[in-house]
C-alpha cells in the first residue's frame, strides 16, 4: 500500500515541492546571467545542487555560454546546470514547445536525426526529443590524429536506418566523405576532475599505451566521452566547437582555457531527496552532495569495504523510511553479489567469466562510480541480443542497426564472436578493433535524477529501467524492494 502511495505521490509532490527555485531553468547562449556559487534545481526526485567552486560566474562573453560557431549554439545548450550539466529529454521537449523548434539546440547538424531531413518537422528531431540523443557523425574508417586512416579489423554494413542518415548520399557511409552516424546522450560537464583522473601509461584493459594529452604529453584517463575519442578537456572542447557549434575557425587558446577552467570547477549532485529530505548529513555518508565532490580527492579506488565508492551509509539504517531505503540501495550496490558475465573489457581482462561480484566491481571509482581504469565496457546496451530495442523489423525501432563482421585474422569480440549486430559500435568506431564493438565508456553516476534518460543511447527512460536492465542482463534476481532501494540510492547521487 505504501509503495502504491509512493508511486502516485511522486508526480504530485514533485510538481508542488520541487519546481525550480533558480532563475536559471534554461540558459540561452549569449545571455547575461550570473551563476551563483551555489544553486539548486528541482527535479522529480528532489533537488540538484550545483557548485561553482571558483565563485559566481558571469556568463556574458564567457565562451562556454557564447556561440563560437555558426549555428547559434554554445556549450551551455547541451550542458545546462538545471540538468546536472547535461540535458534531459524532458527539458528538450519543453524547449521544443517553448521555441517551436527554433532553439539552436535543434540545429540540423546534430540536433536532428539527419541534416537532410525537413528541419521544421518534429519527427525529424525524434531521437533528440524522445531519447535525448544527439547525432555523432564519425569518419569511416577512423582516423589517426594526423588524418591518416587507422587499420580496421571489421567491415560494417547498415542493416536498418530509421533516420536515413547512414544511407544518405550526403552524410552516409557511402557519401563522398564516408561517415557513420550514431546517436548519444551528452555527458555531464561537471565533476570532471574525477573523470580525467586515474591515468596510467599502459591501459590495463588493452595492454596498450594510453592516449596522451597533446599539450602536456602526459597519458590521459581515456574516460572522457562515450568512446574516449578525445584525450583532454581542451581537445573535447575543440571537437564540440568545430562539430556541435559548426565553427569555421578554431577557438583561441584563451577561450579554450576559459572553457576548461569553467568546466573544471563545476560540481553537481543531488542535494535533497523528495522524501528522505536533505542528503548532505555530517553524520551520514561522505559522498553525497556537490560539496563532497568539490572537496574530495579524485583517483581513489572505492571497490572496498573500508573506503567505499560513496561512503558508509550505516547511520541511515534507522527509522527514516527513505533514508533507510537509500542506505539499503547503497549496500546492494556495494555488497549484493551476482554473476557478472560476458561483459567485454570486464570479464575478458583476466578476471574470468563469469565472476561473482557486485556493482562496485566495475563502478569502482570513488565519488562517481565510473571505472578507475579506462572504462569502456560492452555491458550489452547497444548489442544484440541484450539491447532493449524493439525488433529490427518493428516500426518502433528508431536507432540504426549495424552489422559488424570481423576479419579472420582479427581477435573476435570475446562474447559475441565475429558477427555482431549493434546500434552503436562504440569504442570500435575509434579503435577499429573487433574486441571493442559495443563498448561504451562508463558514465559517472552523479546528478542522475536531473538528466534522464540513461545509458549512452537513452534506452532507459527511468532509473527503474536502468535497474531492470541490469537485473535482466545479469540475472540478479532483485526483489521489488531491492529495486526500489536501488532507485532511491541512484536518485540520491
Amino acid at each position, binding site marked *: 500500500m505504501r509503495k502504491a502511495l509512493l508511486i502516485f505521490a511522486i508526480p504530485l509532490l514533485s510538481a508542488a515541492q520541487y519546481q525550480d527555485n533558480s532563475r536559471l531553468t534554461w540558459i540561452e547562449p549569449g545571455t547575461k546571467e550570473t551563476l551563483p556559487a551555489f544553486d539548486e534545481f528541482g527535479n522529480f526526485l528532489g533537488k540538484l545542487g550545483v557548485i561553482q567552486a571558483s565563485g559566481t560566474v558571469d556568463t556574458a562573453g564567457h565562451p562556454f555560454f557564447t556561440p563560437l560557431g555558426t549555428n547559434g549554439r554554445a556549450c551551455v545548450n547541451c550542458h545546462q546546470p538545471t540538468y546536472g550539466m547535461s540535458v534531459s529529454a524532458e527539458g528538450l521537449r519543453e524547449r521544443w514547445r517553448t521555441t517551436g523548434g527554433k532553439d539552436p539546440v535543434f540545429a540540423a547538424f546534430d540536433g536532428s536525426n539527419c541534416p537532410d531531413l525537413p528541419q521544421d518537422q518534429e519527427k525529424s528531431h525524434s531521437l533528440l526529443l524522445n531519447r535525448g540523443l544527439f547525432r555523432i557523425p564519425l569518419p569511416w574508417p577512423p582516423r589517426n590524429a594526423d588524418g591518416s586512416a587507422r587499420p580496421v579489423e571489421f567491415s560494417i554494413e547498415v542493416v536498418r536506418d530509421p533516420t536515413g542518415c547512414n544511407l544518405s548520399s550526403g552524410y552516409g557511409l557511402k557519401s563522398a566523405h564516408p561517415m557513420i552516424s550514431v546517436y548519444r546522450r551528452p555527458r555531464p560537464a561537471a565533476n570532471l576532475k574525477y573523470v580525467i583522473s586515474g591515468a596510467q601509461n599502459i591501459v590495463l584493459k588493452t595492454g596498450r*599505451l594510453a592516449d596522451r594529452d597533446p599539450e602536456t604529453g602526459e597519458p590521459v584517463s581515456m574516460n572522457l566521452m562515450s568512446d574516449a575519442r578525445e584525450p583532454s578537456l581542451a581537445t573535447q572542447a575543440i571537437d564540440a566547437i568545430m562539430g556541435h557549434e559548426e565553427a569555421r575557425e578554431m577557438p583561441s587558446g584563451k577561450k579554450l582555457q576559459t572553457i576548461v577552467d569553467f568546466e573544471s570547477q563545476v560540481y553537481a549532485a543531488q542535494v535533497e531527496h523528495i522524501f528522505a529530505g536533505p542528503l548532505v548529513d555530517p553524520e551520514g555518508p561522505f559522498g553525497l552532495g556537490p560539496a563532497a565532490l568539490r572537496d574530495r580527492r579524485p583517483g581513489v579506488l572505492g*571497490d572496498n*569495504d573500508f573506503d567505499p565508492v560513496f561512503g558508509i551509509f550505516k547511520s541511515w539504517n534507522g527509522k527514516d523510511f527513505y533514508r533507510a531505503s537509500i542506505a539499503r540501495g547503497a549496500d546492494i550496490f556495494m555488497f549484493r553479489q551476482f*554473476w557478472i*558475465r560476458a561483459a567485454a573489457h570486464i570479464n575478458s*581482462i583476466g578476471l574470468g567469466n*563469469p565472476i561473482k561480484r557486485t556493482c562496485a566491481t566495475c563502478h569502482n571509482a570513488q565519488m562517481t562510480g565510473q571505472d578507475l581504469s579506462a572504462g569502456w565496457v560492452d555491458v550489452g546496451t547497444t548489442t544484440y541480443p541484450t539491447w532493449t530495442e524493439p525488433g529490427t523489423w518493428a516500426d518502433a525501432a528508431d536507432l540504426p542497426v549495424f552489422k559488424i563482421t570481423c576479419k579472420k585474422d582479427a581477435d*573476435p569480440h*570475446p562474447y559475441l564472436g565475429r558477427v555482431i549486430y549493434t546500434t552503436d559500435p562504440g569504442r570500435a568506431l575509434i579503435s577499429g578493433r573487433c574486441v571493442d564493438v559495443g563498448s561504451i565508456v562508463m558514465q559517472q553516476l552523479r546528478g542522475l535524477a536531473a538528466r534522464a534518460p540513461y545509458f549512452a543511447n537513452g534506452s532507459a527512460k527511468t532509473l527503474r529501467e536502468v535497474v531492470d536492465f541490469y537485473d535482466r542482463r545479469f540475472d540478479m534476481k532483485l526483489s521489488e524492494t531491492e529495486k526500489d532501494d536501488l532507485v532511491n540510492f541512484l536518485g540520491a547521487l
Partner: protein
Amino acid sequence: MRVACLLCLLAAAMAVAQERNFISCPIVRDTKTVPCFLAEYEGELYFLGIQQDITAEFHPPQLKHEVLVEGRVSEGPRVCGGIPLKPLSLSVMKEVNAACNGLLPAEPGIEAPPAARGAGPASHRLAAPAAAPASLSGSQEFTVLFAFDDDYVDFAAIAVVRKAAAYAKTIGARAVRVMGYRATTVLSNGQRLVEKSALAEKRAQDIATLLRGSGVTGVSADWKQEPEAGDGKTDASHRRVTIAVNP
C-alpha cells in the same frame, strides 16, 4: 647400466604422465565464497583455481571459450572436487564456443580454498604497482609471458614491462633489446599446436612500443620467426618476449 637406463625411462615416463595438457571447456562451480574454475579431461576433473583479484597470479578461464590447460598433477587432496594442477598455465581460446557454459551450483561439502579476496568488495588495499627491485644491477633480462596464440599484454605482463622500464631508466640503459618468440605446445594426446606465424614479431613490436612509450630509450626489437619446439612440459614458458637491459 641397463637397469639404470630402465629406471631413467620409467622415471621419465612417470614424469610425463603427470603432465596434463589439453583443451576443453572450463567449468565454473559456485561455492558459498568464491567460485572455483575446473576443467575435465578424459573423464577426470581438474582444479584450476579460484576467482581472485586482477593482481593475483591466477587468471581464471572464461565460459563461452575453450581453455588450453598446461599443468602438472600436484600432490595433495582434491580441491573443489578436482585434482589440483601446479604449475599451471591457462590460455583462453579466442573463438566463441557457446557450448562452454558449465556453471554448477554450490554443493554441501565442496568448498573453495581460502581466498585473499571474497566475492564482495575488497577488505585490503591493492598491492602497490611493481617497481624495479633496488638490488638489481648490471645487465638484466626480464621475461614477459603470453597466453597461447595471443599478443594481449595482461596485468602480469604489464607489471614486467613496468619493472623493466623502471630498471632501464634507473640505470640509464644504453641498449634495451627486445626479442619475441612464438612456441609449440604439445598436448597430452600428442597433438602439436603451433602459434601463428606473425606472433613473434607482433609480441616484440608491442613490447618495444610499450617500453618506448614508458620513456625508455635505446630500444631495439627483433624476433625469432621459427616457433620454439615443444616438449609438453615447459611449453608455456616459451611463449615470451625477453627484454635485455644493458647498462
